[in-house]
């Protein structure tokens, strides 16, 4: 579903944010991407989503190169950033209709999907309000709904639980599990190790721009908790 091969990203100021990163996410994988602040998680996710250009390595989404066939890749994934910066002058429903129009979703289908997810996230009553009046959490919920309405094969999420209330966080976790059960894949970054441990079947740990360890959760964790493994890696490497 997602193949990141030897991806490296150097910023114009010369700083190497990510170096030789290789990650493979298979259909059905709920893949956690773990690292401390500034480790290179967001840079990698942005490159996967086609937001950041890069000069080394290859990224394939469902067999299509993000550099050469960006539009085909973008039809297959949905990206949710760490900060829900969306068009504040639109109402919630206008934003969702905008996304639905881009993905050419029929009126019937969009009504069904929007109604369902808006009820799940308890923002149905706010859909006619202008987004600038939304709280951070409400904006985050709206971005999540917009990512789900076109049924993407791959979900790319950057710190998806930040700013969500406990019920919404649980809803997102359930959605992620359901999505993977149906054959989709989820690739998400987090530094909440408990969440990653309970949710993911695969995980990669990044430190100072380099993948230190990656693989299935069982392989990486062994007899220890993910937190212990992570702390050992931070101390030893």
């Amino acid at each position, binding site marked *: 579903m997602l193949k990141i091969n030897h991806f490296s990203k150097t910023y*114009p*100021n*010369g*700083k190497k944010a990510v170096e030789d990163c290789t990650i493979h996410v298979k259909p059905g994988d709920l893949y956690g991407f773990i690292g401390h602040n500034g480790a290179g998680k967001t840079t990698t996710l*942005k490159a996967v*989503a*086609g*937001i950041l250009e890069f000069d080394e390595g290859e990224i394939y989404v469902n067999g299509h190169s993000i550099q050469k066939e*960006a*539009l*085909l890749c*973008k*039809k297959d*994934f*949905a*990206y949710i*950033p760490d*900060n829900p*910066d*969306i*068009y*504040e*002058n*639109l*109402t919630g*429903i*206008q934003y969702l*209709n*905008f*996304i*639905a*129009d*881009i*993905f*050419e*979703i*029929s*009126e019937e289908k*969009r*009504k069904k999907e*929007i109604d369902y997810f808006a009820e799940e996230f308890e923002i*149905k*009553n*706010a*859909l*006619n*309000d*202008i987004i*600038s*009046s939304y709280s951070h959490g409400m904006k985050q919920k709206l971005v999540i709904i917009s990512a789900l309405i076109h049924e993407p094969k791959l979900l790319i999420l950057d710190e998806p639980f930040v700013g969500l209330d406990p019920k919404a966080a649980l809803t997102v976790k359930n959605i992620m599990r359901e999505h993977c059960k149906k054959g989709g894949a989820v690739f998400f970054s987090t530094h909440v190790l408990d969440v990653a441990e309970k949710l993911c079947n695969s995980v990669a740990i990044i430190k100072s721009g380099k993948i230190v360890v990656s693989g299935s959760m069982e392989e990486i964790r062994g007899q220890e908790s993910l937190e212990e493994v992570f702390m050992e890696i931070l101390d030893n490497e």
Partner: protein
Amino acid sequence: MNKLVKIYFIEQFKLNKICHNPNRKEAIKAILMSMVFILLLGLISFYSFLMFFGLKQMNLAFLIPGFSLISVFALVFILNFFFLMPGFCFNNKEDNMILALPFKMSQIVSARISFIYIISLLLSWLTVIPAFIILLLDSGFNIQSMGYFVLSFFFPLLPLAIAGLIQSLIAKVAGRFKYKNIITIALTLAFLIVYFAFMMNVNQIDEQELLLYIQNMATSIGHKFFLASWLTEALNGDIWGITKFLLVSVGSLIIYIYITSKFYYQLSSDQYVIGKSNKQVKYHTGSIFSALFKKDLKRYFSSSIYVVNTIVGSLLYLVFAISTHFIDLTEIVESMGLMLENNQIIQILPFIGMIFMGLSVTTSASLSIEGKNVWIIKTLPISTWQIYSAKLMVQLVQTLPVCLISAILLMLGLSLPFTSFIWILLLPILMSIFMGLLGLKMNQLFVNYNWKSEAEVVKRGLAMTITLLLGGIVPIALIFFCLLNPSISSLIFYLSCGFVLFVGTLILIPITMNHCF
């Protein structure tokens, strides 16, 4: 307060980009841009010097203080009303952060006004310093010349206070309405028209009197503009004149600081939240193009700064076309500073339309205005063509009807033949399409998504500045070329111009659309 002012300078002038930028290329680019900017300011200053020198040569040096005061007033008012106040004082993304810090309201307002005052003062020196030099050359170091220099520090206060008070009033009034942006746009344009009418009234009489060499011009300026009169009185040693000048200058600023401090919280925060709507959720469907176009159009009209900055050209074109029905064409052109005959004016009408279209470019800020939302269009499966055509359409829905209506009005008002109507319609339309694409290309080259205030990209953005300069200079050059070569037929001019714009558009399309999101 000093710390706030220091931060404002670092932020607004992007000083860290020059001083602490690890990317040398960017630092050099920033330095070069600063040098070009300084050179431009130098040219303005030199122009002022020549103007004052001319007055000295005509033995009218006593008019210099009044003239320089009027110039400073016009410059500072426009700078503040149009550029600094809307983006810096209000609608600033840092407002919430600043309001949460332990500062008094008066400290925040004073810091912002101090920053604006320093900028205004530096700008006023473009006129004040040349005037001071000429006064020194004329009469040497005496009380008058030194008094002029000292009092010049007070020149920016009144225009700054008036611009600020009007902006506060607009923000306060507009905030009471649901569609506050539309109200802000309407009020801003209304105040601008009033201001231009006032300044034209002052200038027109001065110019006429200059031509007639009327020696009592200072009195005339005084009648038209009280502050200039009080300045002249002050420089002649009248204590009451000095008192009035200082009282009004400083008093107006104190009133402005007091009023703004009182309402700053209301003006800066988004407290006018629209009430919850009970309307039923509507699931409209539409094409990709219409979705992008509607999104861009809403974004455009949601920003009063953006609209006011880009709609002026279209509005002026309409006003110009309407005025031909009531005022003689030669008089209108004369008020623009040109002395032309009726047939010459009719000949250059398509180029005049092109100037107005050159000033009505929305696309040169349309990418930057996406700001932090840019991730949305970058991650959606939409092509560059789809994104750009929607942005171009936002400009064309504003300019094309104006081109058509103005061409019809001009044809009817001046009883022009149909062939003239075609050229008056066609060339501005071609210009608008060409400028729209050029604006997109410029914005691609000088894109800035990390702005804190919309004014940074809409008013002070490099892409916007270059596009507007090109849009203004090229048609003006065409007008001069056309007037200086009366032997060449107008038809050849129009055909060549239309051909160049058409080919230019065809060349710009692939160059612009080649960009990848």
